Structure formats: C-alpha cells, structure tokens
C-alpha cells in the first residue's frame, strides 16, 4: 500500500470495496477487515447472491458477443494491466509476476477464436448427415481464486474468454480490487467479472449450493476437507467442478484444461438430401 512520502501533502487513500455488476459497492453486511492497514470490504452471503444475479444477467450477452470481440476485450485488459504496472508493484507484486500476468491475459485473449477450432470438430457419422460439435460456455462460474495476482488472472481469464461470467472470491483483496479497477476501465461489460473480497471458506459454500451457478472452480481452496464438502454441495445441481491438484505452478503453460472444464459441447445434426 503506497503511503505518501511528501510531508507537506496528505495522500488520498483508496477505499477497497467489492466489484459487482460493474460497480464498486460496499458489502451489504457493512463488514470490513484489515489488510495491511486498509479496511477492505468483507463479502457476505448476500453479496455472493447479488454477484450471481449480476453474473447471470451479463452472461447471455457476453456469450453472444463474437469470439473476435471477446478476444479484443481481453487484449485490452492486458494493455490496461501493463499501464498499472507501478500500482501492482507497489502492492508487492514482483515485476516478473506483472509481466506474467499481462502475458497470461494475452495468451487467453488469443484463445477466444481458437478454442472452438481445437475443442470442436466435424463428425463423420455413418449416414447422410451434417454433424458438427462445438463448445459453448457453461454459464455462471463460482471461483475461489488462489492468492497470487497471476493465480487470480489464471482462473478468471480461462472462464470468461469463452463466454462464461464469474463470481470470484479473492483472498488478495488489494491486488484483486486493483484488477477490478482495470476491468472497470477496460471494455468488459459489467457483471462479466464480479470480485468479492473476504473468506473463501465463508462464501464458497453459498456459491457451491447456489442453484443458479453452473460451475465451481476450487483452485484457491487449500483445505482438502473443505474442498470435498464444496464438491458435495455442488453435486446438488450437478455443477461442473474444477479442482486442480494442489501446488499448481501458475508460471507454467496453463494448457487448455481450465477452459475446457467450463465448456459444454453442443452437437448439431442436419440431414443432407434433395
């Protein structure tokens, strides 16, 4: 947290609030918690539900945008992060991690109009039919993010690039909300990414059991018992659950798994004949 070093002028401090539906509300609970001397909004169950409503509302339009357009929007985010390099570094993120974070957005931006070409295909069915399988986003994804900035973008980008919208519980609140400011000043429609600061253990169960959440990414849950409980809760609506083996190295090539786990494959048949 940058404090003013000029004695003659008092710095204006930032208030760290939630990011829901493209806006920065305080927690409806009125709660905050102290992080590095800052009061940060402590999200509640109600905030999580509001965020799901915002994510659901934004999802059809976001998924309906062309892949090219989503790619442009993601690339724009990379440009905006690059521009806030100093701010992230002041929050203790290393220069190398900012580099990797920008490059990660660029990597996923490029996937927007390619994932269907890698994860979909024409099927040579034994009959006079045109038959093609293509991926579609699964819908609203609840995400418990890992603590690093690189980890945070490595769980958000693969979900949203294909047209999902997300409700993210972030455990590095200042970096996460600074990222939210990046998103708010890019071209990402409000509600596509919603960021709640607070406790994964407190919020995640509400996301896991929420009927209007389609998938759950548990990358940030360290406690194996809790993760299993969440998987069990997610089974109620048969949510897709992404639970990486612990100790993911976010600096490595992320592969396509984080994207494909949050995709549905739709196959279309059509007869051929005169």
């Amino acid at each position, binding site marked *: 947290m940058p404090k003013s070093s000029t004695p003659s002028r008092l710095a204006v401090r930032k208030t760290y609030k939630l990011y829901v539906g493209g806006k920065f509300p305080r927690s409806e609970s009125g709660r905050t918690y102290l992080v590095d001397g800052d009061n940060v909004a402590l999200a509640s169950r109600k905030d999580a539900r509001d965020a799901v409503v915002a994510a659901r509302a934004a999802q059809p339009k976001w998924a309906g945008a062309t892949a090219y357009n989503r790619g442009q929007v993601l*690339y724009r985010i990379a440009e905006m992060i690059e521009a806030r390099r100093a701010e992230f570094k002041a929050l203790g993120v290393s220069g190398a991690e900012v580099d990797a974070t920008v490059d990660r957005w*660029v*990597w996923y931006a*490029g996937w927007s109009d390619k994932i269907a070409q890698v994860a979909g295909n024409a099927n040579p069915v034994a009959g*006079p039919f045109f038959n093609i399988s293509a991926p579609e986003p699964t819908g609203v994804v609840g995400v418990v993010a890992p603590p690093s900035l690189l980890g945070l973008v490595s769980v958000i980008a693969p979900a949203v690039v294909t047209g999902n919208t997300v409700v993210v519980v972030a455990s590095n609140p200042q970096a996460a909300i600074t990222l939210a400011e990046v998103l708010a000043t890019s071209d990402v429609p409000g509600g596509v990414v919603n960021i709640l600061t607070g406790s994964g253990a407190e919020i995640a169960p509400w996301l896991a059991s929420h009927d209007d959440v389609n998938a759950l990414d548990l990358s940030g849950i360290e406690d194996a018992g809790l993760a299993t409980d969440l998987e069990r809760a997610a089974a109620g609506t048969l949510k897709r659950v992404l639970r990486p083996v612990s100790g993911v190295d976010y600096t490595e090539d992320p592969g396509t798994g984080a994207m494909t786990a949050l995709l549905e494959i739709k196959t279309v048949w059509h*007869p051929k004949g005169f």
Partner: protein
Amino acid sequence: MFEYAPAPESRSIVSLAPSYGLFIDGEFGEAKDTFKTINPATEEVLTEVALAAPEDVDRAVAAARRAFQSWSARPGSERAKYLFRIARIIQERSRELAVLESLDNGKPIKESRDVDLPLVAAHFFYYAGWADKLKYAGFGPDPRPLGVAGQVIPWNFPLLMLAWKIAPALATGNTVVLKPAETTPLSALFFADVCRQADLPPGVVNIVTGAGDTGRYLVEHPDVNKVAFTGSTEVGRQIARSVAGTGKRLSLELGGKAANIVFDDAPIDQAVEGIVNGIFFNQGHVCCAGSRLLVQESIAEELLASLRRRMATLRLGDPLDKNTDIGAINSRAQLDKIVELSEIGSTEGAERWSPPCELPDRGFWFAPTIFTGVTQAHRIAREEIFGPVLSVLTFRTPAEAIEKANNTPYGLSAGIWSDKGSQILAVADKLRAGVIWANTFNKFDPTSPFGGYKESGYGREGGRHGLEAYLA
C-alpha cells in the same frame, strides 16, 4: 432512383511522399530504377516506387535469412505480442490505409473501409494468438517454421492479401520477403512503416516492389524455403514448374470461375443481393467471385428481372465517394482484358445487358454487365474475366446444377441459394470447391480457411489450417 449528393472521403488523411524505396532489413533504401503508380480512377500519378533488381532481392532474402535465426528462436508469446502490436497499429491507422488503398487500387472507400481494413487487422489479431499456441494446432507437438518465405501478392486486395501472407508466416516463426503487385505497391510500403512503428526486428519483413520479373526472381531464389503466391492460374503454373525439384514448400491461391446456384425455393430478393455482391463486389476483381450464375429455369425470368432492376441502382464512380458501389478497374491492361472477353461473349452469341450507366471521362471503368443465353462452351463461361461481368446459365435439376457447377478446371468457391437445408448440404457435398457459401456470398473471416480445389491452387489461408503452409 433518386440522386445522392457527393459524399467524398477526404484524402488528406494520407500523406504520400514523392518516392518510395525498398524496405529491406528494417530500412527504406534506394533502387536504381523506379516506376510510377497511378490512381486508376483518374490516371493521376500518385508517387514513384523502386523497381527492385535481382541484387535488391538478394539483399532482401539475405536480410530475411539473418533475421530468421533470432525470430524463430523467440518464444511464441513474444512473437505474438509483435503481431498484436501490428494489429493495433493497423486498427489505429485504418482510415488512412483505407483511403490509400482506394487511391492506389480504385476500389470504393466503402469496401476498403468496411471490408478490407477490418479484415486486415482481424487477420493479424487472429494469427497473433496462434504464435504461442502452435503445439495445440494439430500439427505435432513441436511444429517448426520453414525459414524464409518469398511471397507474391495480387492487386485486387493488396493489403488484405499481404495480411493473409505475412500474419501466419510471422506467427509460425518464418521471415518474409514480400512483393506487392506492380499496380498496387503503396499499402505494402505503408505496412513497412507499421512494422517500424511496432519495433519489429529488422529483416523479419522485407518489401520489394517491382514487376513480374521481380516476383519471378524472388520465387526462384535458392535461399527461399517457402513460396506463397496469389494470382492467376497461368502464373501459378509457371511457379509450380520453377519450384519443382527444389524442395521448397509452395502454396497457391489462383483463379476461379465460381458457380452461384439459385434453386427455385430460394428467397429471390436475398439471392439477388447475393448475386450482386458475388460479382460486382470489388468490380468483380475477386478470385472467388460468383461469375457464373446458375439459376433454376422455372424462376429464371423473375430472378433476372429483379437482378436487372437491382443493377440499375448500382452507383459507379469516384472510389472515394462513400456512396459508390462500383469503383475503377484497376489498370488499363485489366480493362482491355474485360473488354476483350465481353466482346467475345457477344460474338459467341450470348446476350449482353448493362443498365444505363455513365462512365467518367478519365480513368478505367466498366459498367456492370450480365450475359444471358450463355452455354457451357462459351469462353465467358469458362475463363476468368476478373471484372464486373456475370454469365447466366440455367438448369432444371439439382444434378444438372452440380454437373454444370463442376464443369470447370477451377474449384475455388461456389454459392448455393435455397430454403431447404438438406438440399444445401447435399449440393455442397458434391461441389468440387474449397469454399461454399450458402444463402450468402463473399464472406471472409480470419478463422475460416480459404483456398481452392483443382486449378484454383493448393494450400489454405486463414484459420487453423492456414498455419500448415508455414510449418514443417
């Protein structure tokens, strides 16, 4: 038809130097000889460009060879970011480049602004994203670049064809020497400036302007590993012969004589729009133009009446006017060819029709034209005219339509108009062409592979498949 007031796009956004050199190893340099490039709408000289001699091509290939080592060794993610930069700069300069393209080529600003330039930027954007994902593209776990690519492009979509060539080549780690067409060298030279703005390392992209000899010398250069050519089938054949036995990789995107098939259940108004777009888009200077209309006999009369009505509303004239539909023919030579083949059409017995259409006094112009009563033996049904000239044939059954559509040495594209999905797909299966448009025509997208069957060439540009032409 009511009158439109003139709506000229300002050309002041383009600032042309009195002369342009060759772009080799990151620098613009002089050449011994030069030639002039003109605005085909006015025959006004726009500027002078260098005529590359063999030793200039040698220098360009040597620069590309030197650059290849470090360019191909760079991580894909770094190459990607150069290409993203190029895409962004093109987006920012797109109006300037669109006006430039219309000046040098003669195409309507509406097309250069709304079709060419957006596709150019999108193409770089698309292939930028592949640069760090090549192992996912389905060409093996560690696909490698080929080396130096010698690329020769045509005059009909100068900057777009450049994008189709350079974007996949660079994304895959190759370096390039590109020769733009003799009559449209300018947008490639402006692209060289875009490369400089993007801080692209010297030698990765080299632009040599010149005529046919320059292109021939480039594709026959022993230190070129890959040849990519878009142009006429005749030149394509010569290149294939010269490349034979050298081990060079070759991709060719050549001529076409596309059938646009209209069935009796097609929505007529939409089909007419598609026919007009198919043959009059870009003055018919389109290798995949729908130059043979195959219409089912039972609706031929109604459709042709509607087509004639629609053609009478096309506006021909100043390419920089935002309301212009049909611009100038790109060159005197091309105009002569169109005139000649059209005369042959009449001589061979087809019936010629054009709407009343005033042609400007200066420049190269040809009114939109259709020929009816065309048979498969007519030269205007067999040869690529590459102008705003449509040959109309009829058919009775789907089998006859397919037979006629395939009765050509070409196989680049085809169109099908019908309300019955199963019929569209069944006909598409039987057409020997690389791109089939159904109830639309002349659609292009960087994600969608483009290229021909038979004598329309080989290899694909665009899409995942477009990577293959540049990978070992």
